[in-house]
């Protein structure tokens, strides 16, 4: 069974929700990223989403934009990110890893080339923010021949007909963007999230996770029961932005805060 599927299976058996933690590869350097990945998992992150830096991250708010800039200052590449997965897999063979990024760096490596290298490195899925299903033929094919899940985004503006189409060739899980806006936005509306997630769940058996605007115990509590998991990005990245001093403690506290908020009744 693929790692993403078995992770959600296990969580479901324990009646738990997934905590998906996001950070940008190479922010502030590759070694720190590897350390933080391990810390996150040890404190309760169930899935890791690794941001792949791009010069023009169109859907990111300032916090994650700056993380991309820091990673690029170090000349972090997609190849480096694949090597990082190889390193991580030496110690952890179960936690799913998903790359989240923009198409151009992936295209530059080539869909087939990337996907076959990714599979060999131990990557589980890809999520390309600027790749709607209509433009995804190459990556859909390459991902499926290499056993990678292709995570799809659904937005507040996506209507039912589109949701249905998107679900048809999605795999792994569905990522529901909880707000109209960029990452780090602040105005999540649980009522709206609930009704949209219900619609999605009526059209697919895949797990649905909710992201954008979740940053602390309170916001976790407000959306916890509506889906199969939550994604936290900017709140973690903003700690990384503060510098390496006591970073791993800060990340570990934050993950603990979020995962206990996910658990409490």
């Amino acid at each position, binding site marked *: 069974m693929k790692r993403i599927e078995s992770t959600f299976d296990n969580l479901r058996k324990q009646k738990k929700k997934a905590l998906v933690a996001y950070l940008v590869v190479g922010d502030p350097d590759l070694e720190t990223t590897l350390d933080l990945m391990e810390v996150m998992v040890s404190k309760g992150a169930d899935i890791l989403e690794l941001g792949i830096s791009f010069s023009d991250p169109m*859907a990111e708010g300032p916090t994650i934009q700056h993380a991309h800039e820091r990673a690029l200052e170090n000349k972090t590449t997609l190849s480096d990110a694949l090597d990082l997965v190889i390193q991580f897999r030496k110690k952890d063979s179960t936690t799913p890893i998903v790359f989240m990024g923009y198409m151009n760096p992936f295209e530059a490596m080539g869909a087939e080339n990337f996907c076959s290298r990714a599979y060999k490195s131990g990557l589980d899925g890809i999520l390309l923010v600027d790749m709607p299903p*209509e433009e995804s033929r190459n990556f859909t094919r390459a991902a499926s021949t290499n056993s990678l899940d292709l995570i799809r985004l659904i937005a507040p503006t996506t209507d039912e007909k589109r949701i249905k189409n998107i679900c048809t060739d999605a795999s792994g899980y569905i990522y529901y963007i909880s707000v109209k806006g960029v990452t780090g936005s602040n105005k999540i509306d649980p009522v709206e999230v609930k009704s949209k997630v219900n619609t999605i769940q009526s059209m697919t058996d895949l797990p649905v996770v909710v992201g954008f605007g979740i940053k602390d115990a309170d916001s976790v509590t407000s959306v916890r029961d509506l889906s199969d998991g939550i994604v936290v990005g900017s709140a973690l990245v903003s700690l990384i932005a503060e510098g390496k001093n006591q970073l791993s403690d800060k990340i570990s506290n934050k993950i603990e805060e979020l995962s206990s908020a996910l658990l409490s009744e």
Partner: protein
Amino acid sequence: MTEEHPILPDSDGKYGLYGGRYVPETLIPALEELDKQYQLIKQDKNFQNEVSNDLKAYVGRPSPLYFAKRWTKQLGGAKVFLKREDLNHTGAHKINNTVGQILLAKHMGKKRIIAETGAGQHGVATATVAARHGLPCVVYMGEEDINRQSLNVFRMKLLGAEVVSVTSGTKTLKDAMNEAMRDWVTNVDDTYYIIGSVAGPHPYPEIVRDFNSVVGEELITQSKQEFNKDPEVLIACVGGGSNAMGLFYPFINAKNVRLIGVEAGGLGLETGKHAAPLNDGKEGILHGMRTYLMQDESGQIKETHSVSAGLDYPGVGPEHAWLKDIGRAEYVVADDEEALEAFKELTLIEGIMPALETAHALAHVKKMAPLMNKDEVIVVNVSGRGDKDINTVAEIEGINL
């Protein structure tokens, strides 16, 4: 004329390989709606009348076709005619597009206008029509461009627009476009994004081309009157490619007419410091479109350089990418120095001070006209006037104003 040019974009919003719609999911429904509304309204007689009335009474169209007699004589070859987009209201071709798009925005019930700008000409053209229609307007502009185009920044403010300084990335046009996209994703329900070139996700390249095509359409009539044939050569500068597309498109099926786009050569192609993706770039995806881009081997977009802010962009409209591949249009470069020389030359010999963007097209006229026969005709698109660039030129000359 045996082979008719196919009607593009196709139903996927593509020009061959290029174009398409590579944007976050949140924007896809908005782009579908925009496409639907645009396809309907462009057939509508009332809308067509409204646009053409505005182009006539507000913009001042048709723009003249001017025979540059002294310059022609000096160059000693082909007759050079100038299509005078610099005489439009606000001083560039950009207003042709904004006049049309704002009517579309109003028709769609949008309450707020946003735009990106490089040289500030598109920002001014957008702020102008927003003022006229009483809609609030936010213009995103790179910090570096704000510094080199301060006159246009003040113009936009006088017109009531809010100018937001963009400090991310390279602080130029591409980053302004990212920021405008971010605004649009956030305010997609009530906001209309007026993109300023034949770039971005489908249907923008089509919409902007169509509204600028009035330039080439007028030229068809004017050519008959002035020299009773099609011109041999059309020349325009290419940033995103809207003034070039507007000039070229009505001549696409006139295969005897050579179409030449001039990209910014910056400090020279060999230095890598330029803004010429069609000459020295690679296919990729940026700002919602597949096109030629300036990028490194890892797919990161490279910093560009041009003396003119309006050409300082690492991508190009997808239809140009396609016209290049099929060989219907040719794309060349003129560097900073050649552009500055052409800027001065036209000013001195014809009393017409062109924009630095336009000056790139003029630089190519200087290379080409002398090699042509005296009975042949070049039409060059004078996409804008040069007042906005006086500070830049003075600085290069070491003159303190």
